[in-house]
């Protein structure tokens, strides 16, 4: 009963102190929750994407007809075939075998045999790994993204925890004299602890509930409106809340706050009640100043110099919080702006239709004419990506190497010119300058019944590696970059394997894509719509932009609150000092100016330092990404608005507290 009475009294006597603690706690909980929910959604979306793509099956055999199904029945170790919408699905029954690449190859060979037996040449098999089919991502960029998010989450938790702890301790400090009063009135240690624990629990639960509701509702809205964009009817980000993660976050905060309360109460329990009663009047401990006190032009400047050399700790701690946060935010904002310019750019060749060419067939002149005449097509050009070549093995024990042949001049800044039979390869492959490679048409090497034969000497072209490139190797095939002369020879004997299309208007991409799909309907054709991919990425990045903006807004609010509380505390703590100086003849105006001046210096640093830190970093980033450094009006306006808000947050608490402290003098 007495607890309730005390609590009621303490709430009614200083409601704003509890309100500030509540606001700080809510903001502190909100930040890591936002990041955690985003991380959960990212993981969940990817999982759903993989599951939807693989349908949980190992093999998808495309272009199938109902009549093909019986050919795939009764394979030992595989499920019975399931036919749906032109695709036959099968999966490996034993998870062990699925995970084992050797047994997967055995099954693959079996399926190939069945495909040949079916006589349907259009069948297109695709295999999914165990992880893929179970929604476990192995994509390195996704995994590193998740790791980065986890790291950011933990950093934000660390930041929040430290702020929450100091905010709670300063809150407790305000009530230390209450502990003294209670003790003097005969309250036991246990009773006092229970009292503060009850108060903490009340504020904690309220703040936690608020933070959870705010984060869930606002992120759900943001996801629905911007982030859950579907590309090929699949989204990579799907709003998802992992309750365990939320509970874990709250538990961390609860333990930290509980410990800090426990430690403070423990300290109080060893001090006599009298010391606690006077605690609020004690001046903050000040170490001996290293810099001597210097006389400046005006008394206010002299005092300001004194504050800066002896009592600047509060202001430097404000800077230590606000500068890194602002700098990181500006940097992220700049990175995203640069990224948006790169991804959001209009694709020069927006749509491409390509054909895998069996038997040397490609696109004909009529095909080209048809595509050029389509509505929305500005220009069409043939693409030659000859894949009918291999590298002969160097000795009979080795196997041939599949090839991708590209023109060396297509690399852009070609470092040197190649003579006709010289080539370049990536630095990353195991070939060096001076190596001799033997190029050969595939049909001169493979014979019709699946074996190999010795190619005739006139089919073999001897090439010498003359240069290395910085390109990334593309995986299964070796990329070689040949001279323009040789490339011209090669494509002269090849039909075009693709047609690239420049659109009259990027918005026409869907219409052109549809027209191409109907015209080139065979299984050997594939249509790639790069423009819609770019549009998707742009839409996606604007969602991320917004999310980042939102997270930052929460962070900024949090920082402002902390600054406000710290600065108020600073001036309040200097009350005895101000009184003494006033008695010695410092006028109120001099005192006011000295503190505002000290505050102003810090505020100026808080506004300029983040800019000075982030600008060179952005320039560096742009130089690295070869993107133009650009400061658009919107960015400058956002920065200016933030600066004004920051300046206000520095100025207002000092101004208000000073007025309050100076008035009764």
């Amino acid at each position, binding site marked *: 009963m007495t607890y309730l009475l005390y609590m009621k009294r303490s709430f009614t006597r200083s409601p704003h102190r509890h309100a500030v603690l509540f606001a700080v706690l809510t903001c502190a909980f909100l930040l890591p929750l936002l990041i955690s929910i985003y991380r959960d959604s990212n993981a969940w979306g990817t999982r759903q994407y993989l599951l939807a793509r693989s349908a949980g099956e190992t093999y998808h055999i495309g272009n199938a007809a109902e009549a093909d199904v019986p050919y795939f029945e009764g394979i030992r170790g595989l499920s019975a075939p399931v036919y749906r919408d032109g695709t036959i699905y099968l999966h490996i029954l034993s998870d062990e075998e699925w995970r084992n690449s050797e047994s997967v190859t055995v099954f693959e060979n079996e399926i190939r045999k069945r495909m040949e037996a079916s006589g349907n040449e259009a069948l297109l098999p695709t295999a999914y790994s165990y992880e893929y089919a179970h929604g476990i991502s192995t994509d390195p960029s996704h995994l590193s993204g998740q790791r980065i998010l986890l790291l950011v989450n933990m950093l934000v938790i660390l930041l929040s925890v430290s702020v929450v702890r100091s905010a709670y301790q300063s809150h407790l400090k305000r009530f230390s004299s209450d502990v003294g009063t209670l003790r003097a009135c005969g309250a036991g240690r246990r009773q006092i602890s229970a009292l503060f624990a009850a108060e903490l629990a009340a504020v904690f639960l309220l703040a936690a509930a608020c933070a959870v509701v705010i984060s869930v509702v606002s992120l759900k809205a943001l996801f629905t409106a911007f982030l859950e964009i579907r590309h090929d009817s699949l989204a990579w980000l799907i709003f998802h809340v992992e309750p365990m993660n939320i509970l874990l976050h709250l538990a961390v905060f609860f333990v930290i706050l509980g410990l800090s309360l426990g430690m403070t109460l423990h300290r109080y329990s060893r001090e006599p009640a009298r010391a606690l009663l006077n605690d609020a009047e004690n001046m903050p401990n000040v170490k001996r*100043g290293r810099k001597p*006190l210097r*006389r400046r032009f*005006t*008394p206010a400047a*002299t005092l300001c110099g004194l504050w800066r050399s002896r009592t600047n700790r509060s202001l430097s701690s404000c800077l230590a919080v606000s500068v890194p946060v602002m700098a990181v935010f500006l940097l992220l904002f700049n990175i995203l702006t640069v990224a948006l310019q790169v991804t959001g750019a209009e694709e020069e060749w927006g749509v491409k239709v390509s054909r895998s060419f069996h038997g040397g067939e490609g696109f004909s002149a009529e095909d080209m004419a048809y595509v050029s005449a389509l509505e929305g097509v500005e220009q069409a050009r043939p693409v030659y990506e000859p894949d009918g070549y291999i590298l002969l093995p160097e000795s009979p024990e080795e196997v041939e190497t599949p090839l991708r042949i590209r023109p060396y001049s297509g690399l852009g800044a070609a470092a040197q010119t190649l003579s006709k039979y010289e080539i370049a390869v990536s630095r990353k492959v195991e070939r060096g300058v001076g190596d001799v490679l033997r190029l050969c048409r595939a049909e001169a090497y493979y014979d019709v019944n699946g074996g190999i034969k010795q190619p005739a000497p006139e089919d073999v072209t001897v090439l010498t590696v003359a240069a290395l490139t910085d390109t990334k190797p593309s995986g299964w095939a070796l990329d070689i970059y040949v001279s323009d002369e040789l490339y011209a020879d090669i494509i002269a004997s090849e039909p075009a394997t693709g047609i690239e299309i420049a659109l009259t208007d990027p918005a026409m991409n869907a219409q052109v894509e549809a027209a191409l799909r109907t015209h080139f309907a065979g299984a050997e054709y594939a249509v790639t719509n790069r423009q819609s991919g770019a549009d998707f990425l742009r839409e996606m990045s604007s969602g991320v932009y917004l999310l980042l903006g939102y997270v930052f807004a929460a962070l900024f609010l949090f920082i402002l609150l902390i600054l406000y509380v710290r600065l108020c505390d600073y001036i309040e703590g200097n009350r005895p000092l101000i009184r003494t100086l006033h*008695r*010695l*003849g410092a006028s109120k105006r001099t005192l006011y100016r000295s503190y505002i001046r000290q505050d102003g210096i810090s505020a100026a640093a808080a506004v300029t330092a983040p800019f000075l830190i982030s600008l060179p970093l952005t320039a560096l980033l742009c130089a690295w990404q070869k993107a133009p450094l650009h400061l658009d009006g919107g960015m400058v306006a956002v920065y200016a608005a933030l600066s004004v808000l920051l300046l206000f947050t520095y100025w207002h608490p000092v101004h208000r507290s000073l007025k309050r402290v100076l008035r009764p*003098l």
Partner: protein
Amino acid sequence: MNAVTVKNLTKVFRQGDEDIYAVDHISFTVAPGEMVAIVGQSGSGKTTLLNLIGGIEHPTSGSVEVGGVDICSSDDETLSGMRRRKLGYIFQDFNLIPILTAEENIIMPLLLDGKKPDKTKLRELAGFLGIENRLKHLPGELSGGQRQRVAIARALINDPVILLADEPTGNLDKKAADEIMELLLAVNRRGNTVLLVTHEQRYADLCGRKIEISDGKI
């Protein structure tokens, strides 16, 4: 013109529902160059009276004039200027600034007035008060007596026309207290006005005039 003119001065502190008349309709004048002792029991209102004269506290009613300046009607700028230039105040509870060394505390009134501190004067004062080897210490590292001497040095550094001394000998042994008293008398002999609050009858007797207050009244 009088150095200090006090007319019908009253200061009331409200403590809950109770009014405490710390100073109750007091009137007196102090001529320039006079040395006046103010005596009275603990809690009789001596410190409050000095605070009113020093312009630190605002009177509930009545008026105070110090060196021709009317305390009640002057703004903060004028009062602060008067405190810096004309007044020296030795506070009962010292009021030293904890973040400043003894030396910096002593020269603070000069700095607040934008004046260049006079090093020889500082050394002379510190030497006389016996704190010359404690000048680099923070108040927290000084004894009560040493703090008192720093407070006295600070009050005298700007050659005040009027010196308000609130029990300047409270924390000192007899010999040191006698020396301080000697110093105050010397200051007075130079033509400065001194108002001294003291419990010691001996010192009160050394002053030209004695004002006795009890319960805020003379």
